[in-house]
C-alpha cells in the first residue's frame, strides 16, 4: 500500500531533476520560444491534472529560497511609500558593501518588498525602487555592478501575515541574500 506514493515521489523527483538542467532564466530578453513547465506546472484548461512546481534548485521553497530566516545584518526596513534608506540602516548597508568590495567573486541578490496596501503591480515597482536604492548605495561604497541583482516581490511575499502597522513595518523591506 505504501509503495505507490513513494513511486510517485520518485518519478516526480526524476522529472524535476531533468527539468532543472535547462536554463530557467535567459539573460536579457531571450523570448519567443515555447518553454516546458520547468519551475511551474501547466495544464490545458480541459485537463484537470497538474504537477508540482517545487524542486527548482535555489528557488524552491524553504532555506536559501528567498524565504528562509535572515540575520539582522541582512535586512533593512522602509517607511510607507518610501525608498529612502533610513539612517539606522546605514551600518547594515556599509557592512554589506564592504563584504562585496572585499570579495569580487561574491554575488548578492537584493529582494525588495512592500506592505499589502495599494495595487500589486505598483507595489512590485515600489519594491524594485527600494532594491535599486540599496543597490546604488552599495555601489557608491565600492560594490561592483555585476555583483548585485535585484528582484522585487512587491506585496507577494510578506515577512509577517497581518493587517496592522506592526506587520506592515516588517514587510516594507529589502533583504540581502547570497546569489552564488
Amino acid at each position, binding site marked *: 500500500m505504501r509503495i505507490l506514493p513513494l513511486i510517485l515521489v520518485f518519478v516526480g523527483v526524476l522529472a524535476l531533476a531533468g527539468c532543472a538542467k535547462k536554463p530557467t532564466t535567459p539573460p536579457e530578453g531571450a523570448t519567443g520560444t515555447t518553454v516546458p513547465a520547468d519551475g511551474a506546472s501547466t495544464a490545458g484548461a480541459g485537463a484537470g491534472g497538474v504537477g508540482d512546481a517545487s524542486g527548482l534548485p535555489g528557488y524552491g521553497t524553504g532555506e536559501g529560497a528567498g524565504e528562509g530566516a535572515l540575520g539582522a545584518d541582512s535586512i533593512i526596513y522602509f517607511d510607507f511609500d518610501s525608498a529612502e534608506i533610513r539612517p539606522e540602516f546605514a551600518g547594515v548597508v556599509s557592512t554589506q558593501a564592504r563584504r562585496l568590495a572585499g570579495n569580487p567573486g561574491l554575488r548578492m541578490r537584493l529582494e525588495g518588498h512592500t506592505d499589502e496596501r495599494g495595487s500589486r503591480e505598483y507595489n512590485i515597482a*515600489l519594491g524594485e525602487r527600494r532594491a535599486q536604492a540599496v543597490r546604488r548605495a552599495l555601489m557608491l561604497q565600492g560594490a561592483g555592478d555585476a555583483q548585485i541583482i535585484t528582484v522585487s516581490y512587491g506585496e507577494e511575499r510578506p515577512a509577517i501575515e497581518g493587517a496592522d502597522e506592526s506587520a506592515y513595518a516588517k514587510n516594507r523591506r529589502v533583504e540581502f541574500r547570497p546569489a552564488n
Partner: protein
Amino acid sequence: MKHRLLAVLAVVALAVALPVQAQLTVQITQGVEDPIPVAVVPFGWDSAGAAPHDVAATVAADLERSGRFRALPRGTMIDFPQSAAQVDAADWRLLKVDYVVVGRLLPRADGRFDVQYELVNVLTGQRLLGQSLPADAGALKRAAHRVSDAVFERILGLKGAFATRIAYVEVQGRAPSRTFRLMVADADGANPRVVVQSSQPIMSPAWSPDGGSLAYVSFEGGVSAVFVQMLSSGQRVRVSARAGINGAPVFSPDGRRLALALSRRDGNVDVYLLELSDQSLTRLTDSPAIDTEPAFSPDGRFVYFTSDRGGGPQVYRAATTGATSAERVTFEGPYNARPRVAPDGRSLAVVTLDRGAYRIATVDLDRRGSRVLTTGRLDEAPSFAPNGAMIIYATREGGRGVLATTSVDGRVQQRLAGGAGEIREPAWSPFLP
C-alpha cells in the same frame, strides 16, 4: 525524450494527489429593490432516465445571480408548460410573474442535444424569443448559460455575460511553503481548473481578446517573467524575461501586442509595447517615476497606466503611437491606480483611496467625475464584465482574500464565497465564441 516522458508521468501521477479544487459560489449581498419576477419552468425531457442537465435550474440561478431578477420557486408552480403555446398567461399573472421561460431538451440522432427554449411576456401574451441551441452532452450547462444570456438581453436590452469565465490567483498554505495557482472558472464559479501552479508567486492574469489564452507573471525562475499560455493545450511561451521587472501584461484589443511594465537594468519602471509576432519592443513611457499597470482603450489608440510622476499614484494615458505626451486623467483623491477601461471606452475602474480605505471606483472620462462603488478596506484588481454591467474585484472577508462583484451603478453586490485559501486578482474573460 526520456525527461519529457518522465515529466508527463509526474504530471499525471501528482495530479492524483492534488486536493479537489474547491468551487466558488455566488452569494448576492445586495440586489435591486424590485427585481423582475420571472418563472423558469423545468424543461421537458421525454427520453428514458433523468435529463442530462437541469437547464431551467441553471437559467433561474443565472438570472437571480444578476440581482436584477427574482425567479419563482418551482414548488409554487401549478403548471409545467414546455412551449409558448402551452403557457396560460392569466395563470402566471396570478402568480405575479412578468415573464415565463419554457423549453425542452431533445436528444438528437448524432448523440448531441437540442436545447429548445421560448420566452413569453405574460403581461402582453407576446412570445419574445424562440430558439434551438445544439449542444454536446458535456456542454449543456454552457448552453443553459447561453439561454440566460439571450433572456437577459431580450428583457433588459443588455448583452448577458453568463457564458463567460473568470481567471484568478489562488494561494494556499503559509510562508515559506505556499502554493500559487492560476485558475480559470465559469463566471458563476463552477468548473474551476488549474492553469498553472508554482511555489513562487503568480500574478496579474490577463485574457487574450479571443478568450483562448492568458498572459500572466510568474516568479518560478526566481525572478519575474511574463508568459502567454493557451488554455486549450496548456502550451505556453515565455514572452519577456528581461533583467528587472517583467510585469503587468495586458493584450491589445487586436491580440497582436502586449503592453507591460519593464524596469530593465536601471530599475526605472516604464510601460512598453511588445509585438508578439517578432518580439520587438517599443517604449511607451519614459519618466524617472514609476509607470506601470497599463490598460488599452477598446479602440487600441490609448494606453492608460498608473504613474507617480506627480507625487502620488494617479492614472495617465498615452497614445499608442507615442505621438503625444501622457496626460493625467484622474483628479479626485490622493491615490488612483490599476486602471481598467470599460468596454465602451468611456469610463475607468480604478483602485482609489477613499477615507483611508482602498476601494473600487469608476471614473467618467468625459466628465472626470469619480464614484466609489465598494466598501472594503483593501479592495483591488477591478475587472469589467465584457458587457460592462458588472465589475469583479478582490476584497477581504475575515482577513482572507475573496472575490466580489458590483454592478457599475453599485446597486447589485455579490460575493464569490468558498474556494480554498486566498483568492485574488480576478480577470473577467471577453465574450467567448
